[in-house]
């Protein structure tokens, strides 16, 4: 009886939260289903199937080109972010050197500057250094935007490693570099995974930086999808657009579900110490 009344008492809670969960999941399910559903004005006029994905695959340079671009940009951003933050975090946490605080603050100051402010001069400046309309240049820019979080995170990670661990390695005759490689990298691995995950998601999903810096066959998938929608004036192929959204989203959702713990921890360390 007591149990029964508890369940009844909780019913409104389950109804409200269940409803909310449906509302949050609905757009995702809707796109996934619509991308294979019949729709007027798409390759999927009747019956279910993957016609929209075929349209998408053949759009201009082909979806594989755009996916490849996204991948090159993201991998560049992740590798540069992780390496830079690993070395930089080590420097900021374990060394004393002149200009350290100034450089740290300057890195954090990137957070204060809007994308739009930096992208206009970057458009011109990248041309000067031979990186205009290049995937690597865009990856580097995206890595720089990730640096404040990444350096901050790695500094915390290195600071929380007990001193004795590194000292022991140094006493045993390691240089700082091999101490870093053999002892410290394993200790800060969770932080590195978080930094890499955030850098990947940010680079993979970024729209504004490629919009300013890339064009033609060098577009990553999000930009190509938006342009695909705009170029066919009047008649928008929503089917192909939805297929594109699915292609873009699936890797992110999978990564998110697999690495959820790191994702949440990343927010927490930012929130607690920030």
């Amino acid at each position, binding site marked *: 009886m007591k149990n029964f009344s508890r369940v009844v008492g909780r019913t409104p809670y389950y109804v409200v*939260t269940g409803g*909310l*969960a449906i509302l*949050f999941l609905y*757009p995702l399910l*809707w796109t996934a289903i*619509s991308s294979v559903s019949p*729709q*007027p*004005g798409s390759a999927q006029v009747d019956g279910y199937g993957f016609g929209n994905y075929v349209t998408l695959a053949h759009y201009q340079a082909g979806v594989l080109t755009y996916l490849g671009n996204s991948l090159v940009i993201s991998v560049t951003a992740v590798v*540069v972010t992780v390496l830079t933050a690993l*070395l*930089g975090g*080590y*420097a900021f946490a374990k*060394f*004393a*050197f*002149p200009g350290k605080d100034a450089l740290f603050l*300057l890195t954090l100051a*990137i957070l*204060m*500057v*809007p994308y*739009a*402010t*930096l992208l*206009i*001069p*970057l*458009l011109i*400046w990248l041309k000067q250094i031979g990186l205009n309309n290049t995937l690597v240049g865009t990856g*580097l*820019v995206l*890595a720089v935007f990730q*640096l404040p979080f990444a*350096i901050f995170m790695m500094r915390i990670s290195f600071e929380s490693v007990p001193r004795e661990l*590194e000292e022991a390695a140094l006493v045993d005759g390691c240089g*700082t570099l091999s101490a870093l490689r053999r002892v410290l990298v394993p200790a800060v691995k969770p932080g590195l995974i978080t930094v890499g995950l955030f850098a990947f*998601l940010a680079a*993979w*999903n*970024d*729209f*504004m930086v490629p*919009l300013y810096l890339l064009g033609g066959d060098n577009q990553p998938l*999000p*930009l190509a*999808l*938006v342009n695909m*929608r705009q170029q066919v004036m009047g008649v928008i192929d*929503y089917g192909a*657009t939805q297929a594109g959204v699915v292609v*873009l989203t699936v890797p*992110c959702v999978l990564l*998110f579900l697999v690495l*959820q713990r790191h994702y949440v921890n990343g*927010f*927490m360390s930012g*929130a607690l110490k920030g």
Partner: protein
Amino acid sequence: MSLKTAPPRGATSPPQPPEGPRRPRNPHRRAWQGWAYASPTAALVLVFFVVPIVLVFVMAGSDWTLLGGNQGGNLPENFTAVLDHRMFWPAVTFTLKYTAIATVLLIGLGLGLAFLVQESTRWRAFLRTAFLLPTALGLASASLLFYALYSPQVGPITPLLERLGLTDGPVSVLGTADGALWSTVLLIVWRYAGFYMLLLLVGLQGIPGDVYEAARLDGAGTRQVFLHITLPLLKPSLALSTIMCVTGSLLAFDQFYILTKGGPDGSTMTLVQLVYNLAFESKRDIGMAAALSVIVLFALVIINVVQLRMMRRNPDE
């Protein structure tokens, strides 16, 4: 420098600059190494942050067009041209309005969701994942998704309204000024509510349980506990969330570029969208776009400093 004067090791050391872990072997070597490890950071920051910042100020003071390049300095002109631009004040007003709406809704809903999933049970773990899942999407993907969702051709809105007998033709929710604003707000709420839920949840779980117990023992009701215990102790998390939300909304771009392009009739033109238009669409005037983005930069810095000041006041009570 005798051994005796070395700082005690075992005790938890205050945030002292971490000195060499061994006896000061050769301080110069450590400093040199520190710089070596920090050099990739320094190089990236210098090339892709410091140089562009300097350059944007130069551009803001120059007659610089997208196709014509730099045609020499003209200091105040870009700034006066921006202030005189017919879309400048509408964009300022709209951006502030959008920021106010988005911040109130996102922080309010984020807090509400955080309360709903506060305790850990299997059901709540599922809820957390459901609310957080949109956060994994890029803003551009989410905007494209909602663009289709809102479309009169394929979206579910027109059929739904038809079935309810409220309309007999296609409904274009993005076609009116109010519709475009609130459609964008709905997208943003969907995409970011889980994010703020998480930030606030971290804050909620940082409040020790015995504080609540003590309040309950003293006879405080739910409302009183919320107002006098939860809210004050949650202040740091609320402050962080608010700053992030205000900053993000003031710089809104992707969602408007994709959903409305600033329309209909310039009614959803944000400042960053205007920067883009000045540079690439209406004017193709890089100098003017740079001037506006410098204005946005200063506004943002001032707003952030003011917010930080307000939150630093009575830091502990």
